[in-house]
């Protein structure tokens, strides 16, 4: 069996491509001057620059964390360029003919329509195309509801009071090494504001912000849901996007005010590196939300990309009766390493949290779940349920589980379940005996394993996520 599986999973990354030389990019290096220039490029107000500089000064005194179950060569932060302008029309591929056919094949398998493929592949389009009208109607509909959804750089200029009020309140500038770096140098990301009592009329997806193709390596997102409002936000896209940056350090902050709900779904499918772990994105993300009274925050993530993933979407359940959820599928193969999980910090009374984590490891990869459930002294009647399942494909991969529980309240209840299973020979044989090829068999078994998480994803996303797993597990012969 293991040999068959080896073959089936040792595929080439279907979205890999070589990029052109970029001209409009800062030279490598990071100092206060670079930050001033970023701020200037973005036409930012003085307070924003000051905010960045303070973050930078803190960052300089901080140490890169080394507690995660990850191994990689030290990153030289002076060797990175911190600003690269979106490619100009003339530097972009003129048509899909100029785009890596492997990338197109992936799009095809995902069933992505042609014009959307063009957008994702970064094809230069200065003519009107179908999606533009989609985006326009989309904007109009949101404006009617009073919802703000725009690049954060625009929000800093257009809605400074809102940004000032909430930026850094959930993830402080000095929260951790990567968050501090992001605070200093972030170049783009999204801003979402849902007014009181408004149910956002559609799923918000970064995908709709197609004018912002190169969202950059230091993305910053801030979502504010006013009292009694609701929003579902999709980050990323199941189709791999053009991306030339190796280091990613994003920060996402969610503010869920009383009785509101934020549902945040992510599909992350960046370049994982080759069989030997060369190349590939390093993804160090800080995602956190604060839920006030009766509010709910739900994180759902499907992680199949990146060479290194360091990511713990968390909920601070500050208000009484607030709810936090974390549903995660993390798939690693080849030499990918993932250390991911969540933190549920119960501060209010009767707060509840649910954690469902599904880790799938194949090849020589390493997949770690790291979760903290903390019950504060005032969290009377708080409850957590955690389920952590690992699925191993082959025998050269590894799965680890690091659950941390800290309870300062005797009335709080914490439940933890963990399982480790393998894709068994018997299961594969049954599938193949019914006519399925080995790749289909593996992807079906893996999809079944992930079902509890996929059902939390918005419908269309769930279907695509399933297909994405299938592609991620596919052999090089497609």
């Amino acid at each position, binding site marked *: 069996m293991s040999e068959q599986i080896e073959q089936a999973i040792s595929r080439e990354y279907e979205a890999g491509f070589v990029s052109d030389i970029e001209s409009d990019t800062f030279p490598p290096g990071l100092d206060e001057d670079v930050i001033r220039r970023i701020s200037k490029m973005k036409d930012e107000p003085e307070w924003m620059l000051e905010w960045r500089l303070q973050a930078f000064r803190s960052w300089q005194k901080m140490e890169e964390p080394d507690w995660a179950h990850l191994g990689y060569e030290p990153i030289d932060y002076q060797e990175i360029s911190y600003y690269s302008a979106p490619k100009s029309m003339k530097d972009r591929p003129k048509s899909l003919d100029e785009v890596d056919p492997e990338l197109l094949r992936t799009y095809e398998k995902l069933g992505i329509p042609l014009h959307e493929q063009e957008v994702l592949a970064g094809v230069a389009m200065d003519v009107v195309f179908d999606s533009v009208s989609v985006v326009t109607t989309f904007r109009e509909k949101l404006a009617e509801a009073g919802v703000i959804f725009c690049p954060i750089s625009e929000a800093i200029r257009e809605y400074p009071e809102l940004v000032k009020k909430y930026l850094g309140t959930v993830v402080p500038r000095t929260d951790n090494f990567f968050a501090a770096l992001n605070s200093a140098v972030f170049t783009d990301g999204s801003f979402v504001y849902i007014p009181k009592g408004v149910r956002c009329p559609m799923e918000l997806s970064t995908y709709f912000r197609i004018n912002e193709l190169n969202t950059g390596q230091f993305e910053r997102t801030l979502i504010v849901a006013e009292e009694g409002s609701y929003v579902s936000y999709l980050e990323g896209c199941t189709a791999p996007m053009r991306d030339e940056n190796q280091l990613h350090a994003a920060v996402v902050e969610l503010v869920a005010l009383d009785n509101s709900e934020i549902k945040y779904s992510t599909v992350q499918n960046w370049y994982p590196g080759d069989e030997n772990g060369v190349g590939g994105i390093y993804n160090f993300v800080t995602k956190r939300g604060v839920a006030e009274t009766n509010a709910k925050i739900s994180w759902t993530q499907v992680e199949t990309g990146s060479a290194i993933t360091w990511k713990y979407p968390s909920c601070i359940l500050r208000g009484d009766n607030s709810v936090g959820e974390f549903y995660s599928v993390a798939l690693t193969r080849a030499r990918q390493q993932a250390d991911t999980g969540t933190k549920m910090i119960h501060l209010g009374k009767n707060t509840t949290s649910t954690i469902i984590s599904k880790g799938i490891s194949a090849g020589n990869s390493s997949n770690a779940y790291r979760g903290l459930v903390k019950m504060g002294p005032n969290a009377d009647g708080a409850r957590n349920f955690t389920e952590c399942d690992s699925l191993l494909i082959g025998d050269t991969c590894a799965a680890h589980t690091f659950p941390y529980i800290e309870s300062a309240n005797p009335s709080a209840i914490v439940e933890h379940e963990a399982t480790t299973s393998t894709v068994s020979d018997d299961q594969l044989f049954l599938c*193949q005996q019914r006519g399925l090829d080995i790749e289909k068999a593996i992807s079906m078994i893996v999809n079944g394993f992930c079902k509890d998480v996929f059902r939390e994803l918005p419908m269309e996303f769930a279907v695509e996520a399933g297909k994405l797993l299938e592609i991620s597990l596919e052999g090089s012969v497609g």
Partner: protein
Amino acid sequence: MLKIEGLHANVEGNEILKGLDMTVNPGEVHAIMGPNGAGKSTLGYVLSAREEYEVTAGKVSFKEQDLLELEVDERARAGVFLAFQYPVEIPGVSNMEFLKESVNAVRKERGQEALTAAEFLKRAKEACKQVNLPLDFLKRGVNEGFSGGEKKRNEIMQMIMLEPTLCILDESDSGLDIDALKVVADGVNSQRSDDRSFIVITHYQRLLDFIKPDFVHILADGKIVKSGGPELAKEVEASGYAWLENHEEASA
């Protein structure tokens, strides 16, 4: 349809099949009986290309092709179906999804269009009824939490859906009460046709009261030691397998 000649097979280095011959013509039902450990399940696995079962000598042709050349899934798509003695669970994968993928994989091989969702559902519901499984079984995970009898009936349902040409049933009767046994037998009988053949592996004669075989073979120590008509099964029931000992001694 199927011709097995001088088949030898090893499992983990031990020779289990030791020169097995057998010919199955279209439309025939062959019963294989024999004591535990004789190699009955091994024969089923060898015919369906399970990895641990290594053919060391002999030939197997199936519908004019060299069966041994084909992989597990290729054989399945060519029409070989094995109903398992111990069906395995696939958590989270619904029976419906599983059947749909399988049926369409097989249809594709035959050059047929994939079934539409509606047509598939119609057939699946009929098949469910035929083996007396409630419709909600389609939504449940493959064999997930099924009782022993339900698993066996589920195998027959898959067989009905996949329309294979060679059906190998490995102790589809074991652990069934008489009612369930009848359901399984009815399911099988409904599929009998001039161009579909069956190899029915069983330890007991009882099943053969309901599925009438054309031929009965006794498999012992990796070989067919005796073949005959349905009356052979009755003999076995009357006298057990003890006579085999003598037979082996005699042939040794």
